[in-house]
């Protein structure tokens, strides 16, 4: 492996990790606060991506789709939390499982009916533009997606640590009965937290769409990695998840280059299994939120 290939793989892995991070963050917020496994998380990203596609087809800069997808997904989250998630919070885990899987299938099939199973790509201003550092080439779209990811993650961290809302969310996550005793409106917090969890996808969607493509099952491509990141980083540990995203992204990239045949993508999951074996609470410890 020469230096250029190493550098290129490193950059590619880091960029990919950043992209995974923004998807994992929202997932973790929903998981940590409501304690529900949102199987449909990827499908909400798909919705944001279709919004971007529609905006693009209307001859508007696809990045501007964020002004629609962000509020849309937030409200979708609030409404879903109110009418679907909160009512099932006290049910058995298996019932929650089935409802969330069902939601995921419904959304995917709706997309198939509305938009056909076809694949669509979106061209943005940066499509095809690259940045060259020595021999290493960076796609401008990916770099932007990466930057947005870091911003989203940073904003989420700041909100959780420094704002009243963040403190309330953490309180509910730690002990919802105690939180309600001291006057926190638990149901409202649930709705807001789930809304934010989906809204992060509303931010990601417009920036990820030009890098990938849109199809009804695009969500399932991301979700497996997002879950792996949540486990490796430690439940509820936002900083841990950020680091884990980079580790998983790097493992994915180096696996592809170093391992023979099509065994490359095994590497991130070997990583996942080792984490479960030796640090079952995640590399950085699960703190709750």
């Amino acid at each position, binding site marked *: *492996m*020469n230096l250029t*290939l190493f550098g*290129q*793989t490193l950059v*590619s*892995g880091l960029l*990919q990790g950043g992209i995974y991070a923004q998807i994992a963050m929202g997932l973790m917020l929903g*998981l*940590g606060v409501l*304690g*529900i*496994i949102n*199987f449909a998380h990827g499908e909400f990203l798909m919705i944001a991506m279709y919004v971007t596609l529609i905006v693009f087809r209307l001859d508007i800069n696809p990045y501007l789709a964020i002004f629609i997808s962000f509020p849309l997904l937030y409200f979708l989250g609030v409404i879903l939390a109110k009418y679907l998630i909160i009512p099932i919070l006290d049910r058995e*885990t298996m019932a929650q*499982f089935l409802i969330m*899987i069902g939601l*995921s*299938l419904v959304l*995917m*099939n709706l997309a*198939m*009916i509305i938009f056909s*199973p*076809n*694949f*669509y*790509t979106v*061209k943005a201003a940066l499509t*095809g533009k*690259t940045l060259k550092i020595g021999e290493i*080439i960076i*796609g401008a779209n990916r770099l932007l997606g990466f930057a947005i990811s870091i911003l989203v993650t940073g904003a989420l961290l700041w909100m959780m640590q420094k704002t009243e809302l963040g403190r309330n969310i953490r309180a509910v996550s730690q002990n919802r009965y105690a939180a309600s005793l001291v006057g926190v409106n638990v149901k409202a917090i649930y709705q807001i937290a789930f809304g934010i969890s989906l809204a992060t996808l509303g931010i990601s969607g417009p920036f990820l769409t030009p890098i*990938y*493509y849109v199809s009804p*099952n695009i969500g*399932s*491509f*991301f*979700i*497996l990695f997002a*879950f*792996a990141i*949540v*486990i490796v980083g430690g*439940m*509820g540990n936002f900083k841990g998840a950020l680091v884990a995203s980079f580790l998983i992204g790097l493992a*994915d*990239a*180096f696996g*592809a*280059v170093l391992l023979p*045949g*099509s065994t*490359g*993508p095994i590497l991130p999951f070997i990583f996942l299994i080792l984490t*479960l074996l030796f640090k*079952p*609470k995640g590399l950085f410890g*699960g703190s709750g939120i």
Partner: protein
Amino acid sequence: MINKNGIFKLIILITVIAMLGAGLAGCAPKPSGGADENNGDQGEVSNVEPVKIGVLAPLTGGLASIGEQLKNGNELAAKMINENGGIKSLGGAPLELIFLDGEGRQEVAMGEVERAIDQEKVSVVTGSFHSPSAMGATQVAERLKTPYLIQVAGADDITNRGFNYVTRVSVNLFKYGYDAVSYFDWLNKEKDAGIKKIALIFEDADFGQSTAKGSKEAIKDLGFELALDLSYPAASTQNMTPYVSKIKAANVDAVIATSFIADALLLADSIEELGLDAIKLGISGGFADPLFAENIGSKVESWFLADNFNTDIPGIEEVNNKYSETYNSKMGGHAAHAYQSILIIADAIERAASRDRDDINNALKETSITDSSKIIVPYKAIEFDEKGQNIYAEPVVIQYQDGERKTVFPSKFATSEPKF
């Protein structure tokens, strides 16, 4: 709460997701109603008892858009034959197509084919481009001693299992892979392309593995150097950049890729992004999909695409026009092979002068269509070898030039020169 219940559920969940992912391809709802509703206009009805033909195609589910093209091709051919007096040796018996919705799922396809043979009493079955469905369906046909003419499905094993009742019109995957390299050999000899080192990149399921096997054999036979042999799992690969970096670092002269549409798009993007300087050829699948060109835009012109059909092939204008008139869409490879298959079956029934499955099977196997006016696919002739594979089925190499899909190889079908 998940924090308290521990991490075990997450493991279950991941397993569930992985399993879900495998089964999601064909999950669209199926409309109610039987096969009869699918039978469209097949021309005039005569008094003679029709010859029933089962046509397997995914008419619902994720593959339905391709299934629709397949259906159209079959239907158009049957209509033309019926309008021209049906099967003359059977007193003008018309062809009656029974469409079988396989949904792109093997078990459904097998059930439908069994039903068609047992209950609908079809004389012959044809159809399918989805290899897993075709593998299962031919197994049913073999067991029930019913001839099955494969229209498009490419898996090598369909004709490699020693079945007596299976024939295939189109190119098999091994041949696709092999001929991709033959094309480079031709480029070297005729166009001084100077290709020596070749990289293969393919999705790691049967599709990619089979074409790669063909390419590797040709690389050995024709004296090229296999510089890289890369495969990736299509379902879990979202980042093609590392693979392309590796190809770039290997300094190859040419790349042969076998991908589905999603990974083909990602691969082409990464190649563009990293500025890989090599001759690129994409085999069928995602690359032959019109969506590839549509989504990639003008950079598609830097790709060679191996496919089993192109609309610029001489002598197909009439069928092509008729198709566009009837269905308001362009005829593609699937429709063309479907159309061709019905012609082949009609020819076999005509010669067999019988509705009996064994008689038709024997006649099918002795097919020899050399009259180019009866061939709308880019094959010199149609004859089956002892395994049932059409001996003359060869891929054509296509290049988009000034927005047009031009055939550049083999020379006898070429309408333009390759640009690289």
